[in-house]
């Protein structure tokens, strides 16, 4: 990486051989077949190897970086701008970033799984570096100087005698339409001016001054407002709907009915809302949904039909366990709970559908929408515009489909669909309920001799592609059935994400019971199965540490070979002031937990102090100290923001949250019935320490703290009360019952 790499455009073109599929902006990105795919290209470059998929330089010098990922509020737009600016050697403010748009950017699938930095960030990193190299090469040619004598600065190539060639002067029209090479002349991290700095986020100024920043802020000329009338329960059939009175209401443009899909369009927003209530009144449904019993979820899950696979098997008969314990941990359905209910704008004009959506995957959503509408994909364009935080697959994709279906009914008129709060809570696909069963033995030295781990779970992704994943497609007259659930393969995993422990155990067996049937609508929620699996593993590690009479931190280090993991554990413990044999103040407890997200993304350890009110059972997070290793850090403050946020969110999940339902309906449909953390429960302090690894690959960090925070809190509660709770959420009543028992 440090040896000079020269990229000569002619050489590259000459060497690339066979067919080059040229790319036309007006056609949008078709599925490009890379001419001679270089097998050593990192992930997103692999799917879009042409440099101009990532970097565009106009002849006037304007620079644009492209990413197929979406800004979800994690600060990626800013981070990518930093990466591109650094590697191109241009001022940060001088370039802009365009995010996911099926007409403009590469198909990077979903912004999920903490892949954005690893995949898109890496692609931009390398592409920008290679573009800079090409510019140097071109300048060398024109100036007739050796390339080593030239340097770049401030958007220009500069010769020793001071001659400058601005980047804009160096490019011709398809200058960058050239495939990426396996090696890039990356800048030495020691010389970074912008990467590694806490550059203020580019999107925050608009958000704190009322600038247009969200899909909710889109206002197009002639735009109408739509509201949905969703069925009252899964599978309900609309048997009668005399909408005559609604059609006559002020401002109403259309009532859209397509099978069980029902919506109303009006000129003004409040008119649409009133019409929605009136329409709901005249809609008659036949319901036959049968939901499981909330209390029986764990036993139900374990009894359901499953496809079982052993994902880890290790055996060393020499090592024998002497003391054995086992435990079962459970997690209910939990909700994304986005503060802004889902929203989308769509317009159908000249046979083309344009959708503005906060979906995490513009390409898969486009495929699903085009399939739903029975339209060619290239006639559908999906543009990502920020929504409120989604934390996974929430209602965004569905709202996009709703808007498209409605827009088709009112050609040329832009339509804005806004879900109501109850609709977001009631219809979003939840994080799946899970059960884990663990059993382990200690040898004579107090080390783990054998380890058994089983997890029962649905798939953790029912994202579109496939129109059947969309509510609108399921509800319309020519319904498209829900596609069969499929597990996400390892090493990523879904229900089995982080089921394989990072620790080294001589005997180990991990079994994944994949349950295809989904009685309640589920899909991906931040960290997927890792939240519960890490909660289980790290709670159980503490239970084993207690059995061994060992300090929890020391116990983990005894079983961990991974050097970076050890560093992260040490850093968190040190930052917290963790002392072997410590005692917490009265009614307080200390807890610790650690994991490497997916065993291949960022490392995170979290130490917590929790206070438990013995009279009421209420637990409160007093302080948390985290350490994270994300590889090369691009924006330290952005990373800290994510870790702090993940800890607070996980605290809410862990202490409060479960979806509630009766025999037929989801009953947690607003903030009364699905409470989340408020300011009264916010801790006194959260400190996040970064271990920066300059030059090392980026590691995805958006989800890495969810599991460790949960287990750390559970361990702290056990330390405070002497009682071990294994069923999420660790609610006040459960803690009180445990204390009283």
């Amino acid at each position, binding site marked *: 990486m440090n040896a000079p790499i020269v990229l000569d455009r002619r050489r590259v073109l000459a060497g690339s051989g066979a067919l080059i599929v040229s790319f036309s902006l007006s056609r949008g990105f078709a599925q490009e077949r890379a001419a001679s795919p270089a097998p050593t290209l990192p992930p997103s470059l692999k799917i879009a190897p042409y440099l101009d998929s990532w970097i565009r330089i106009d002849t006037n010098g304007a620079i644009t970086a492209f990413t197929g990922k979406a800004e979800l509020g994690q600060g990626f737009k800013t981070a990518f701008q930093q990466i591109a600016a650094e590697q191109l050697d241009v001022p940060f403010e001088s370039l802009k970033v365009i995010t996911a748009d099926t007409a403009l950017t590469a198909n990077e699938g979903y912004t999920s799984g903490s892949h954005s930095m690893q995949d898109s960030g890496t692609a931009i990193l390398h592409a920008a570096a290679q573009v800079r190299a090409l510019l140097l090469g071109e300048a060398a040619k024109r100036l007739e100087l050796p390339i080593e004598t030239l340097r770049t600065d401030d958007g220009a190539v500069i010769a020793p005698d001071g001659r400058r060639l601005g980047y804009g002067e160096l490019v011709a029209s398809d200058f960058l339409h050239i495939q990426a090479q396996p090696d890039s002349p990356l800048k030495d991290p020691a010389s970074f001016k912008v990467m590694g700095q806490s550059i203020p986020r580019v999107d925050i100024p608009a958000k*704190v001054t009322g600038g247009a920043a969200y899909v909710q802020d889109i206002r197009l000329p002639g735009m109408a407002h739509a509201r949905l009338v969703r069925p009252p329960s899964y599978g309900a059939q609309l048997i009668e709907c005399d909408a005559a009175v609604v059609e006559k209401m002020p401002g109403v443009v259309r009532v859209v009915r397509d099978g069980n899909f029902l919506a109303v369009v009006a000129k003004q927003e409040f008119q649409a809302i009133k019409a929605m209530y009136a329409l709901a009144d005249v809609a008659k449904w036949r319901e036959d949904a049968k939901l499981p019993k909330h209390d029986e979820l764990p036993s139900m899950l374990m009894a359901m039909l499953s496809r079982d696979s052993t994902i880890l098997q290790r055996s060393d008969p020499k090592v024998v366990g002497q003391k054995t314990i086992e435990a079962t941990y459970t997690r209910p359905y939990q909700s994304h709970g986005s*503060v802004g209910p889902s929203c989308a704008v769509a317009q159908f004009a000249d046979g083309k559908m344009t959708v503005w959506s906060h979906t995490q995957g513009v390409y898969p959503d486009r495929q699903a929408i085009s399939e739903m509408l029975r339209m060619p994909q290239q006639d559908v364009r999906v543009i990502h515009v920020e929504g409120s935080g989604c934390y996974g697959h929430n209602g965004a994709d569905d709202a996009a489909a709703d808007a498209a279906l409605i827009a088709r009914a009112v050609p040329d008129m832009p339509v804005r669909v806004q879900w109501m*709060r109850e609709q977001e809570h009631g219809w979003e696909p939840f994080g799946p309920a899970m059960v884990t069963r663990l059993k382990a033995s200690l040898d004579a030295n107090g080390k783990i001799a054998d380890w058994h781990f089983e997890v029962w779970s649905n798939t953790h992704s029912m994202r579109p592609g496939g129109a059947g994943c969309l509510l609108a497609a399921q509800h319309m007259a020519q319904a498209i059935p829900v596609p069969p659930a499929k597990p996400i393969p390892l090493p990523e995993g879904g229900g089995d994400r982080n089921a394989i422990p990072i620790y080294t155990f001589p005997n180990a067996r991990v079994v994944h019971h994949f349950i295809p049937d989904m009685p309640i609508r589920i899909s991906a929620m931040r960290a997927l199965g890792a939240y519960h699996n890490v909660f289980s593993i790290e709670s159980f590690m503490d239970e084993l540490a207690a059995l061994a009479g060992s300090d929890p931190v020391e116990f983990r280090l005894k079983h961990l070979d991974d050097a970076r993991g050890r560093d992260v554990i040490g850093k968190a413990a040190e930052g917290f002031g963790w002392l072997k044999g410590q005692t917490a103040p009265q009614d307080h407890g200390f807890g610790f937990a650690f994991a490497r997200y997916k065993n291949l993304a960022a490392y995170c350890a979290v130490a917590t102090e929790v206070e438990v009110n013995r009279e009421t059972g209420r637990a409160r997070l007093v302080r948390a100290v985290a350490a994270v290793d994300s590889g090369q850090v691009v924006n330290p403050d952005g990373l800290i923001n994510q870790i702090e946020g*993940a800890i607070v969110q996980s605290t809410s999940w862990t202490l409060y949250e479960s979806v509630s339902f009766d025999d037929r309906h989801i009953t947690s449909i*607003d903030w009364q019935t699905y409470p*989340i953390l408020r300011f009264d429960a916010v801790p006194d302090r959260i400190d996040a320490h970064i271990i920066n690894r300059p030059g090392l690959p980026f590691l995805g960090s958006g989800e890495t703290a969810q599991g460790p925070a949960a287990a750390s809190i559970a361990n702290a509660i056990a330390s405070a009360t002497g009682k071990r709770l294994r069923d999420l959420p660790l609610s006040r009543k459960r803690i009180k019952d445990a204390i009283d028992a």
Partner: protein
Amino acid sequence: MTTTLKVNGQDHRIEADADTPLLYVLRDELQLNAAKFGCGLGQCGACTVIVDGKAVLSCVTPLLLVEGGQVTTLEGLGTVAAPAPIQRAFMDEQAAQCGYCIAGMMMRAQALLQRNSKPTDAEIRAELAIHLCRCGTHMRILRAVRRAAHLMDTAELSPANQESVR
């Protein structure tokens, strides 16, 4: 029905039904972005604006209750070029992740600081009790409010800003 409403120092004649929630008047009639739809039920605070000096939930405030009143939204406090102390503070602390809840938080904090320039941490938390942040930005939000209090204490408000926040 036609209503007169002063919003961010400017008079507006609003043509909307008297029962229209102020939130939709602001967003749709006046094209103001800051106040957000979060729940429409008065449970989350994302719609908060200031009316006659007090923070209100605009999603459950019908137009008929604020007729003739003075409404201040986040847009009325300052701009990117000339931010108010509360906006400066939130930018300095980078107190946002998705940012959807932030405008409401800022208006509530602004109203608090206008009547109590040195709130304690407990008072700030109590004041923000109705506000939800799902991203978990709470620590930064608290720091930003404290920072804004300090800025307001030490800085002079420009005459333009003084006018619009009353």
